[in-house]
């Protein structure tokens, strides 16, 4: 399948099928970085993470927050989702 002619969600779904359940970094436009286990995602890049930690820009920067419950991140605010 050519990636160029793929429908909008297919690049993401092909990628995301592989990384669900794995640890990821998600950065928002604000620069906030969320690291956790990817529980689910949709075509809007809405994301839910578990065991999430919050840092600014880089995991080496100080831990800002630790979320014990699942976290939902709104797709419009997501800059990227990256495997760790």
């Amino acid at each position, binding site marked *: 399948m050519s990636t*160029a002619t793929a*429908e909008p*969600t297919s*690049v993401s779904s092909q990628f995301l099928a592989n990384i669900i359940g794995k640890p990821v970094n998600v950065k928002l*436009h604000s620069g906030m970085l969320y690291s956790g286990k990817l529980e689910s995602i949709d075509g809007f890049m809405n994301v839910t993470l578990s065991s999430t930690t919050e840092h600014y*820009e880089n995991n080496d920067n100080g831990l800002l927050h630790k979320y014990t419950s699942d976290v939902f991140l709104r797709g419009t605010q997501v800059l990227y989702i990256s*495997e760790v």
Partner: protein
Amino acid sequence: MSLPADILPLEVIDKTIDQPVWIILQSNREFTGKLVGFDDFVNVIIEDAKEWIVNEEHSELVMEHNGRMLLSGNNIVMLVPGGKKDV
């Protein structure tokens, strides 16, 4: 007006797949890495990405990513096939 579309813009990106790419956002953030794929929104998947914040004088490496990254096309301004030569 008819367009004699010898090469469509997205074909240029398509030819960049499996090659280094340099991606510039609306903000002062840039990414370099190997282009894996993209979609019609120009959401992009890059491999082993380096994330930069660019100031007038220098580029600051924010993070090195191992593996694949799905980068939202929402804020992408420019893709440069071949990558960023001066780093």
